[in-house]
């Protein structure tokens, strides 16, 4: 048993972290605020070239053939640096295409030549084997996408973005996420895999948890730095227990969320019978840690935390978006309570 990342794993996520800092700094979110897509095709291609879309994909479709634990460490870095773009949907889309037998499409997605956005059902009948897709959907970062990934309790499928119908843009609370809505009426489903065969929702929840952990960590670091440097009444504010203890609670909930997310990812890789329990638990603690800590981060920063100029709100807003991916916190909680106990 070893729950600590290996040197190799840390090197991979460290490399990605450098790439994000250089190519996709948080300032890019503000620069592209009015653009249709949150990330450029050029940045997407660069990320693909670095292998970031294929960490857990098989080598024969251009991936690195690593596990969900490696991928979770990478997505934590995305959270820490608030990287925009439909990375989760595309990574899952490639996995789905490969498992559904469309190696060509999987290869295109891993190479960055096809982008997959996320569709989440708002109303209508659940997708059945073979489709077609009907109902009302929220779309996340689908504006520049070729495909949409839909993950439902029954299974998951891919749909061509061009085939779903009239996509109407909606203002999203998060300036780093593009939100839209669509009413689909019989769009054909390209790849379909039942949940019993491909537990894609759990993979998605593990990745969302990882991003939430990264957000939680980043806002904790921001708060600790501010508590050390901001001087009031002649002393750094971090000497006060009201601030110090708030920072500590953020650090503890981040640590709990990180360890549970790693535990969940390893459970998925090794096929533990309680993998669903572990991943749902990760989503619950990571979602709460990210949202609560981002909120505390704003408070610790005082007036500055309430400004658009400071990054705290960007973390808070992204945390809310991620907390809705695949199932919101209420659904995660009720699924967790219904699951068999941990082994």
């Amino acid at each position, binding site marked *: *048993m*070893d*729950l*600590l*990342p*290996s040197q190799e*794993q840390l090197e991979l996520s460290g490399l990605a972290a450098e790439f994000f800092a250089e190519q996709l700094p948080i300032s890019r979110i503000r620069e592209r605020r009015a653009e249709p897509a949150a990330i450029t095709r050029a940045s997407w291609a660069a990320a693909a070239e670095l292998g970031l879309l294929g960490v857990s994909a098989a080598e024969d479709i251009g991936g690195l053939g690593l596990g969900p*634990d490696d991928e979770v460490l990478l997505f934590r870095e995305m959270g820490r640096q608030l990287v925009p773009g439909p990375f989760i949907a595309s990574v899952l889309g490639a996995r789905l295409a490969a498992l559904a037998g469309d190696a060509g499409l999987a290869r295109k997605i891993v190479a960055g030549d096809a982008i997959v956005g996320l569709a989440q059902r708002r109303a209508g009948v659940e997708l059945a084997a073979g489709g077609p897709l009907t109902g009302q959907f929220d779309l996340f970062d689908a504006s520049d996408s070729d495909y949409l990934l839909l993950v439902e309790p029954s299974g998951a499928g891919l749909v061509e973005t061009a085939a779903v119908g009239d996509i109407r843009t909606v203002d999203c609370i998060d300036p780093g996420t593009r939100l839209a809505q669509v009413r689909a009426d019989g769009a054909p489903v390209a790849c379909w895999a039942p949940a019993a065969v491909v537990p894609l929702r759990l993979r998605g929840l593990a990745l969302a948890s990882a991003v939430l952990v990264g957000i939680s960590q980043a806002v904790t670091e921001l708060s*600790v730095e501010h*508590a*050390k440097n901001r001087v009031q009444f002649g*002393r*750094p504010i*971090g*000497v006060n*227990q009201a601030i*110090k*203890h708030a*920072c*500590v*609670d953020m*650090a*503890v909930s981040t*640590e*709990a*969320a990180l*360890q*549970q997310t*790693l*535990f969940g990812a*390893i*459970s998925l890789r*090794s096929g*533990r019978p309680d993998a669903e*329990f*572990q991943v*749902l*638990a*990760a989503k*619950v*603690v990571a979602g*709460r840690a990210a949202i609560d800590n981002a909120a505390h981060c704003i408070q610790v920063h005082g007036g500055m935390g309430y400004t658009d100029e400071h990054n705290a709100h960007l973390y808070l807003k992204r945390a809310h978006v991620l907390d809705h991916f695949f199932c919101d916190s*209420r659904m995660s*909680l*009720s699924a*967790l*309570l219904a699951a068999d*106990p*941990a082994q």
Partner: protein
Amino acid sequence: MDLDFTAEQAEFREEVRTWLAENAPTEPRPHSWEGGMREYDLAWQRTQWEGGWAGIAWPQEYGGRGLATLQQLIWYEEYAKAGLPAIDSTFVGLNHAGPTLIARASEQQKAFHLPRILRGEDIWCQGFSEPGAGSDLAALSTRAEVDGDHFVVSGQKIWTSFAMLADYQELLVRTDRGGSKHHGITWLICDMRTPGIEVRPIETIEGGAEFCECFYDEVRIPMANIVGEQDGGWRVAMSTLSFERGTGYTASQVRLAAVVENLIELAKERTGPDGRRPAIADEEIAVRLATARAEVAALRAMTYAGICRNLRSATPGPEGSMLKLYFAEIAKRVATLAMDILGDDSLRATSRWGRPFGWTGNYLYSFSTSIGGGTSEIQRNIIGDRVLGLPR
């Protein structure tokens, strides 16, 4: 990264499970210290030693098994699964005094005391806190004056669990009053049968009387009982506390997961606040139960990660305070949730040693989790200063 246990570790687990099923005491543990608690606890410890299960992670030369903390974890997990009671009177010997002696004591001290702890011959208690030195432990003032080859100790200790049952005490005394308060403290092995020691029980909010205060009136303790250096006891004490806050809590963490599962069962059996449906159908209770499940899962993951860190470096660091803090918060929330599930029955006094498990006693006991072993506020100071590097 992996969560797999080796074939050898799996076999170890199987051995533990089989042995516990065959050898665990079937008689209920006495609730009071006058009612044979000492005899019961020491007999069970001796049975464990005879079966080869005492001191799993202790060095072989002192009677332990010399295995890793991972095997110790497996023991705790199986122990909790078997529903066996926590034996808190042997806790100090096995989780504070023992590890401290292993780390800091002389060969002679180790050779005498460690096997006695493992064989179930001695109970230890902790003489750290004083009426004037609680969170500010280094302000302690119990005096030890040198007289020949003895110290003569006078003063008072408080919050000493099981002092009335104990044979020995980890005793912190003030041997030098000049200089800084962290200097001049000495860690002594105190024989509790020495003349001049008076132990008085203190009743707790739970109704238990394991808590004591100890009075020392010119108690003569041989200087040979110093552990570590004279005047250098603060560092020795801090290593003890790191153990307590680190792996020492593993057993409680593992047990808390079982408590949450039992609480879910309770919520299925009990009628909820609407007077019709089971408590688990109430949305608020369901959310709190699910949150508790998620949090004890994360607590376990943190415990596992802590053990993996320990396997890489021998001395526990301040991260143990994170575990203790998180544990205390969850334990208290879970205990409070039980009261809400019980509804009107939450007013009926029950004991956490009872069968069925007494949720109201457990609720009252839970208040100790964020106070004992250093309050949650002190843990937050330690984490803030030593892990996050915040200014003091």
